[in-house]
């Protein structure tokens, strides 16, 4: 599909400047919140007015756009600036639809992140925002892969970002997807419980068709929308067969999130791995959110470059050499994404 060159990431772990994944940073009050860095590449006047998702997205993207000229940018986000949306909604309510200031309305639009980066860098190229919840980032990657077939010499910025805010945390909690009882992220996979820990963050990549200087290659991806774990397993088996990598996955990076309702999908897909495949998980480190596959792709890139993952990620040890990684994530048991990544 394409080669991955530079990347940047904001998460609950130190991933933005000096990357350090050795010791797991503990969650606080059942939140796996992102550590926001000092944003050096974003104009201060604009930064001050931005909501959290916009800040994280633009900050992560601008770190790369400061060094690379791109022909377009593609962002995945399920909620955009949802805190700004609800802030504006509350103003509508509190001021009984009186005269309102437009800032939170304009910034809450889902496409504000890509739009803002286009504006700051005066980039007239392709500018897209994919918002299909747990497949928003996979659609970004597919869109980029198509663009690179249509325009083989181009380079694109791709990424995913979502925020936890007080209000959307409340919405997802009411829908029953988060743990009610206090739990630390270090214990996320222990026991038999319903719900997970919310996370947030952003990961961005510079991608093109050039092998020189690349750190990884996205070989293929597949999206599945189904609640049936047998169907998901069949689709994964077909995906492995199509790419001729059955029994050849060194690292299976999967999105288990401590919710016993979703475990069956991961068990079904693990059953397709060979005995020497290393199995690793990432949601204790990043939390659960719709565009976390972007962070999983970032982590796969890290594993390929460092040829190891810290122990807290590992579920089952196997192959010590990482050349080929399969990422599988599912969102609320409805949306499933597979991404096959190889070392360059």
């Amino acid at each position: 599909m394409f080669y991955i060159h530079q990347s940047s990431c904001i998460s609950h772990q130190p991933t933005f400047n000096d990357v350090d994944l050795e010791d797991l940073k503990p969650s606080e009050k059942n939140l796996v919140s992102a550590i926001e860095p000092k944003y050096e590449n974003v104009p201060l006047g604009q930064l001050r007015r931005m909501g959290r998702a916009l800040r994280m997205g633009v900050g992560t993207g601008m770190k790369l756009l400061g060094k690379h000229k791109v022909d377009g940018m593609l962002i995945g986000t399920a909620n955009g600036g949802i805190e700004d949306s609800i802030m504006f909604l509350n103003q509508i309510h509190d001021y009984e639809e009186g005269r309102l200031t437009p800032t939170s309305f304009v910034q809450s639009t889902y496409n504000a992140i890509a739009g803002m980066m286009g504006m700051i860098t005066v980039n007239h190229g392709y500018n897209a925002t994919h918002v299909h919840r747990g497949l928003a980032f996979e659609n970004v990657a597919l869109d980029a892969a198509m663009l690179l077939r249509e325009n083989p010499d181009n380079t694109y910025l791709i990424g995913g970002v979502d925020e936890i805010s007080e209000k959307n945390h409340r919405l997802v909690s009411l829908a029953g997807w988060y743990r009610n009882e206090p739990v630390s992220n270090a214990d996320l996979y222990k026991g038999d419980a319903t719900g997970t820990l919310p996370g947030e963050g952003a990961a961005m990549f510079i991608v093109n068709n050039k092998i020189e200087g690349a750190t990884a290659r996205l070989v293929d991806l597949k999206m599945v929308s189904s609640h049936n774990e047998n169907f998901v397993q069949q689709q994964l088996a077909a995906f492995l067969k199509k790419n001729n990598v059955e029994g050849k996955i060194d690292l299976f990076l999967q999105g288990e999130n401590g919710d016993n309702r979703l475990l069956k999908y991961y068990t079904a897909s693990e059953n397709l791995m060979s005995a020497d495949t290393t199995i690793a998980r990432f949601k204790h480190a990043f939390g659960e959110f719709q565009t976390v596959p972007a962070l999983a792709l970032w982590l796969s890139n890290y594993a390929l470059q460092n040829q190891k993952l810290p122990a807290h990620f590992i579920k089952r040890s196997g192959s010590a050499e990482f050349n080929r990684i399969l990422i599988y994530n599912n969102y609320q048991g409805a949306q499933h994404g597979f991404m096959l990544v190889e070392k360059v």
Partner: protein
Amino acid sequence: MSKIVVTGLGIISPIGNSVAENHTALKEGRNGLSQLELFPTRYATLLPFGEIKITNEDFKKQLGVTQSGVTRTTLLALHAFQQAVADSGLSDEQLRSDDTALANGNTIGGMCLSDELYMDANKNEVGSEYISSYNLGSVNMYIQQRYGINGVVNTFNTACSSSANAIAYGARLIRNGFARRAIVGGTDSLAKFTINGFNSLNILSGAPCKPFDAGRSGLNLGEGAAFLVLEREEDAQGKKIYAEVSGWANTNDAYHPSSLSDNGDGPYLAMKEALEVAKLNPEQIGFINAHGTATENNDEKEGIAMKRLFETVPAFASTKSNIGHTLGAAGAIEAVYCILNLLHQEVYQSLRFENAIETTGLTPVTVYQKKELQHVMSNSFGFGGNCSSLIFSKAN
């Protein structure tokens, strides 16, 4: 390279619940703008709106919706989706096949239920039935689950150009071999959220809008949905082929979060690149369904961009004078209107135009007329600088 053709159409708008009803209304130059009747807002009687006068309860009955948590944005989409699928004659097996893609663009999702969201986000101890329906993905989540669609499913958001990009995405999925057919479109329903949002920007007109008129005073918001079934020409043998989707482009104006640059760079590039994809010269475009929102900024800058690209600006009009600005649905609804232009070889009048904007001197089509058309263009521009153009060509 395979041609991408349109084999099914579905639409609901303030001027009709079907393709045929919309066609008649466009020919007659009917106005679909009125006072708001179906939900309370202080602007209901103060501003004109393109409202579809069917209640959610009636929609649910008509569409066989028995599940909870289905919002108006989804109901409008479902109405258009069902029409398009039936029109194209897609079977249940084809819908479930893993080479059938589904993509829509929308900007409001379940946030049309502004009051319910307010309660869920701030007050409720137990979530309402809409608790998982607020974000934009909810529309296609429902359609995908109801019909068991197994191919690529996506939701696009580039503000007011969302569904133009969903259509382009579908065409590109087919062309690149990631789908054999794609059901693509857009939807948006009127909402307190968007009414107050656009009002805070001072761009809502207190009177029915006047696209491209020197005295224009802003836009009117509307609601609606449209879907198109796209297939490869060789797979559409024996089917009615409405038109070819021949060009598309997505660019960014890179100037301001909510207004276009002085030279209309984004619109100019979108139209130019769409022509390149279609391998056409500017003079081959016979008609443009303009973005034409009737805001001070858009109509002037769009006109400037058209003049930059076209030596002689082709016939153009804005159907937003009939139905208002349907935001995320606009690109898809106007795609259907462009296809009607081609199919019937005619152009529809822009309503309420009186005097040309001084800086451009451009006059839209003001009377219905027959016109020989091979290629028509549709423009959609949105917040965040997102500009898109589509080109549709007459079926052979």
